[in-house]
């Protein structure tokens, strides 16, 4: 079974600084997706960034970037120039690429990010 581990229950960063959230996963599959979702207090699940396993290039979305290490099964999220609005729970998630739809997202336990003004 696939598992996703986020070892940092809470992180704190000063506004305008950079923070990195860690995520490791376990899988025997070769074709899969990795995601970071953000859940602010409004509880809406918002996709932050996506990485396809076949791509060697790390995904980037504005201030958000990932460090994808496929061999090490590591998928960390870097937030640059942190803003107060970045304060939220961040979930790392894994999903196999699969035709029948028999695989849902597997989530890590989440990291609560606080942004200090």
């Amino acid at each position, binding site marked *: 079974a696939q598992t996703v581990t986020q070892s940092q229950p809470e992180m704190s960063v000063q506004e305008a600084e950079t923070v990195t959230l860690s995520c490791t996963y376990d899988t025997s599959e070769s*074709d*899969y*997706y990795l*995601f970071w979702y953000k*859940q602010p207090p*409004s*509880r*809406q*699940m918002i*996709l932050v960034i*996506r990485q*396809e*396993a*076949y791509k060697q290039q790390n995904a980037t979305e504005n201030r958000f970037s990932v460090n994808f290490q496929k061999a090490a099964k590591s998928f960390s999220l870097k937030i640059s120039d942190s803003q107060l609005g970045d304060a939220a*729970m961040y*979930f790392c998630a894994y*999903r196999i*690429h*699969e*035709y*029948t*739809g*028999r695989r*849902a*997202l*597997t*989530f890590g*336990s*989440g990291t609560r990010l606080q942004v200090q003004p």
Partner: protein
Amino acid sequence: DTAVSQTPKYLVTQMGNDKSIKCEQNLGHDTMYWYKQDSKKFLKIMFSYNNKELIINETVPNRFSPKSPDKAHLNLHINSLELGDSAVYFCASSPRDRGTSALNTGELFFGEGSRLTVL
């Protein structure tokens, strides 16, 4: 237009009651899901339907019964509610994977969640 909408957003009820949460998506997706988020924020898959067919049924008590009248709707009915059922329930949808992963985004689109409180 809300892509994935759930009703109600909040639900407070007594132990032993029966309640339903409805979900609708207007994205034309083939697959819909129910997730449960517990008090520790852990998200766990409960059910998944693909074109009205149940394809994922995790270890969930029989008191929980999903129903999909069509591929745009997935409802969750809960019988004999217990205190431990208190949680936020998320509906989500995704297009079915096609071809190689290069042709797909793989992401799930979530509703706003329904907070169920059982007293």
